[in-house]
């Protein structure tokens, strides 16, 4: 009897322990490369660390006081929020549109899908470089084309407004394919009976989309909203290689500003405080979305 009991206990222990054993390599890596630097970042945010082989000195809340009086940081955060507000719906719309088109039985569908997905496989740095070569002012292919067509050159990346909207366009070009795949997976998982029932009820194509497709995509929509939102909040390598934050800081977004503060101005402590604030903003955005979705019953 005691042996049986011990064996049962051992079984329960194994049941509980085994998942953690399998998770441990990932948790180790996550802890080492994500959690530890994050904790160090929070610690640095209370110091005057400059990262030049010096020892950080505790200065309390001074960095937080300084950053709340920094108009340039405020401008960069506001610029980032505008970017999220504008780019997110555009990416969302185009990725959904592409997904709806590409789940249809089109001829050459695999090639078309691959074509739209292709930009996703290119790193942001390379995407930025490619579009800089295309759109830059005096030597860009875009202006060369306008010249050839006799339209005449226009001010491209030297124009703050053009540069800002170019970031929106290039991000959408680069990432719409990724979210398209997610939407396609969600679209293909909608039971066909729902469409058949709607058709029998006399629903037209638009009504079927509105009352069957769109509500069925709710979990996917939420996930894409959060993932794309966070990705745009954290935009950096694309901007660095594409516009370098210019012209005249028109495309200076929060992460680039933090990077510059840390590694050009050598104020790693202050930059860490900025990062903590950024994390708070992204968390508010994410938790807000989750709460909203929960209230509407999406999750």
């Amino acid at each position, binding site marked *: 009897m005691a042996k049986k009991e011990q064996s049962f206990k051992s079984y329960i222990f194994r049941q509980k322990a085994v998942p953690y054993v399998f998770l441990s390599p990932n948790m180790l890596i996550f802890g080492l490369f994500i959690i530890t630097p994050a904790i160090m970042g929070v610690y640095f945010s209370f110091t005057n660390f400059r*990262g*030049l082989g010096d020892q950080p000195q505790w200065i309390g809340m001074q960095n937080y006081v300084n950053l709340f009086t920094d108009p340039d940081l405020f401008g960069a955060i506001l610029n980032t929020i505008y970017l999220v507000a504008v780019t997110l719906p555009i990416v969302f719309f185009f990725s959904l549109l592409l997904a709806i088109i590409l789940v249809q039985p089109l001829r050459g569908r695999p090639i078309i899908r691959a074509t739209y997905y292709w930009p996703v496989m290119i790193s942001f740095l390379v995407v930025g470089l490619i579009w800089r070569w295309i759109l830059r002012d005096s030597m860009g292919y875009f202006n060369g084309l306008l010249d050839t067509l006799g339209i005449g050159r226009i001010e491209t990346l030297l124009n703050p407004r053009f540069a800002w909207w170019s970031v929106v366009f290039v991000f959408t070009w680069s990432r719409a394919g990724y979210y398209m795949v997610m939407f396609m997976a969600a679209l293909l998982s909608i039971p066909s009976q729902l469409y058949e029932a709607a058709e029998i009820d006399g629903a037209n194509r638009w009504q079927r989309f509105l009352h069957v497709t769109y509500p069925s995509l709710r979990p996917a929509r939420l996930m894409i909203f959060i993932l794309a939102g966070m990705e745009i909040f954290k935009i950096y390598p694309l901007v660095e290689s594409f516009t370098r934050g210019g012209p005249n800081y028109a495309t200076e977004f929060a992460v680039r500003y933090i990077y510059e503060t840390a*590694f050009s101005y050598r104020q790693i402590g202050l930059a860490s405080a900025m990062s903590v604030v950024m994390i708070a903003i992204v968390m508010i955005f994410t938790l807000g979305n989750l709460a909203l979705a929960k209230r509407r019953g999406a999750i």
Partner: protein
Amino acid sequence: MKKFFVLLIAMVTFFTVAACTTDDDEKVLEMMWFSDGNEADVMASILQKYYRETGVVIMLNPIGWNVYETRLGTMIDGDDQPALIRTTEGVMNNFQDHMVELDGVFDEEGFNNIFRNAAGNPLGLPMDVTANGLYVNFDLLDKYDVNYPTRGDDDIWDWDEFITEMSKLKGQDDVSYPGVFDFQGHRFMPLMYQQGITMWDEPLESMNLKSQEAQDALQILMDLYADEIISKEVFSTGAQELMMSGRYGFHMSGNWFVSFYEDNADFNWGVVPMPTGPEGQRATVLGGKSLSAVKGSGMEEEAKAFIEWFSQPEIHDEFNQFVPFLSARVGADIDFGDLDPVLGMFQDEISATPTTLTADWVYMTQVPGIYPMINDMTNAAAYPNGKSALDILTELEQKILDELDD
């Protein structure tokens, strides 16, 4: 493409040497390096010569300049510092507590531009001296009858004459802009010095940035941007890259780009005197690179031995001849062949700069984060948004003094 090959050669050297170093007694040092042109190629061949003479292996580790200090800081924090490192005044200043003092390692009388710590000990062996200067596209200038002075002319143009002449290039079909300035604020320094004034009133205490002379200097830069004499595109594309298109008449830069021009320009190019200030004052900004040893590498003595070996005139001159750079060695007489007139022009700019002005920049490099501060200033000169030269310079002065207070 050239950079790719430099990197390739450096990597092949790195891995080949690393693969060969199986003998435990064989010493292997790491040298951290950055390049503007072909310096890595030349240093790699000198390191091979050192290996043949001494059996000591030095691995060249090329790092991009934009992450250079960050990488060095990380390596020092991780106790994985290189034994040797190529330095600027800024790097030596920022990391001076981590640099090996080199007193007695080389003949200090034999070199110019030595960077010393507070105790007066040298922190690097000066390798070369740099100066700002004016590259021009002779094909374009001659095509549109732009008059320019040449080396040895007594009558050198001032900024008004320069702008008048270069304006002839505006609006031409095969010209994008008359010229380009590197976006780096460092290029602003000669304009200041040509006004006969330094940045510092009292070094690291008070500044001259709000003086009329400083305002006049910045106003020249602001007018060059506002009148579309120089392109704002430099803030996203390298000025040298724009110049290589052959659609720009001049490029305000420094002598470190000579080999880049030599390798890439497919037009007739050269260097002409920079414009003078109102009193006819010629001036450039003096800088340079050094070779330093890093504390804590465990190879400090070996690093010093290499620096001593490198300071020999024939080795030092070999590096500067093939790069090609102006030598920091007193009395060096290097034959640069066809490039003699070009490098001579930079040497003229240095010679014409009063010695009272040359120490000014060294004090600037002692302000942490000085480069982005003055780069912000040049960005503001290009995009003033209603600010005057005085507003911009007041902001810069405040930033610098705040940093010193910290």
